[in-house]
């Protein structure tokens, strides 16, 4: 089961994960990561822009690479675009597999690539001012692990 989506409206990760789990009968484990807009840091809003001709095709290619690299039964990859409020989900990646290692590593792999190597641009509003956010050095280091 493969489900790759860009969403411009708020979504409920729990509902997506429930459907996804049910759609992969026989699985041994499901690993899921949900990223949300942090609400503790003075961020008033977050906006994710993208470039339509590249963004979803890039996510599909990332899914191809994830299936090729890990022994998976299913992969869910959902990413928000547009303006979001603190506490709203930004991203949800879920991987179903026979064994936990493939499921956990696949989620880790997808998240590192979505964070620092997918066609999104992120900015935060603080005190009414918008600030563009680049990946942290840790994010680039995390991504580099997979090139080994």
């Amino acid at each position, binding site marked *: 089961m493969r489900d790759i989506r860009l969403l411009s409206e708020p979504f409920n990760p729990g509902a997506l994960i429930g459907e996804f789990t049910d759609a992969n009968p026989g699985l041994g484990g499901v690993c899921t990561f949900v990223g949300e807009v942090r609400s503790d840091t003075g961020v008033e809003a977050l906006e994710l*822009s993208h470039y339509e001709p590249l963004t979803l095709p890039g996510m599909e290619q990332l899914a191809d690479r994830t299936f090729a690299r890990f022994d998976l039964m299913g992969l869910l990859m959902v990413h928000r675009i547009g303006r979001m409020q603190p506490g709203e989900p930004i991203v949800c990646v879920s991987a179903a597999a026979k064994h936990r290692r493939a499921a956990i590593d696949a989620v880790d792999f997808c998240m590192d690539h979505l964070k620092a190597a997918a066609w*999104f*641009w992120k900015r935060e509003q603080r005190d009414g001012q918008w600030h563009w956010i680049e990946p942290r050095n840790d994010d680039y280091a995390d991504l580099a692990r997979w090139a080994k």
Partner: protein
Amino acid sequence: MAVTILFLGPLRDLAGREAMEVDAPLEWAGLLEVVGADVADQLQQARVNIACAGKVLADKMALQAQDGEEVALLPPVSGG
């Protein structure tokens, strides 16, 4: 017809606009001339990419945009 140049993410702020139209064909040297000095500086950094007609260029200096094509200027990304 013409070539549309799209400024993505922070390049939009730097350019002061989202898009501009220029005469076709458009090559690397012509692009640097029309986008303004600030954006041209960014384009010369390795971490800024260019897509033409929906494909990211392996070598952005080989840009050859034809009539009706879109040239997207892609600064460093940040998702998740």
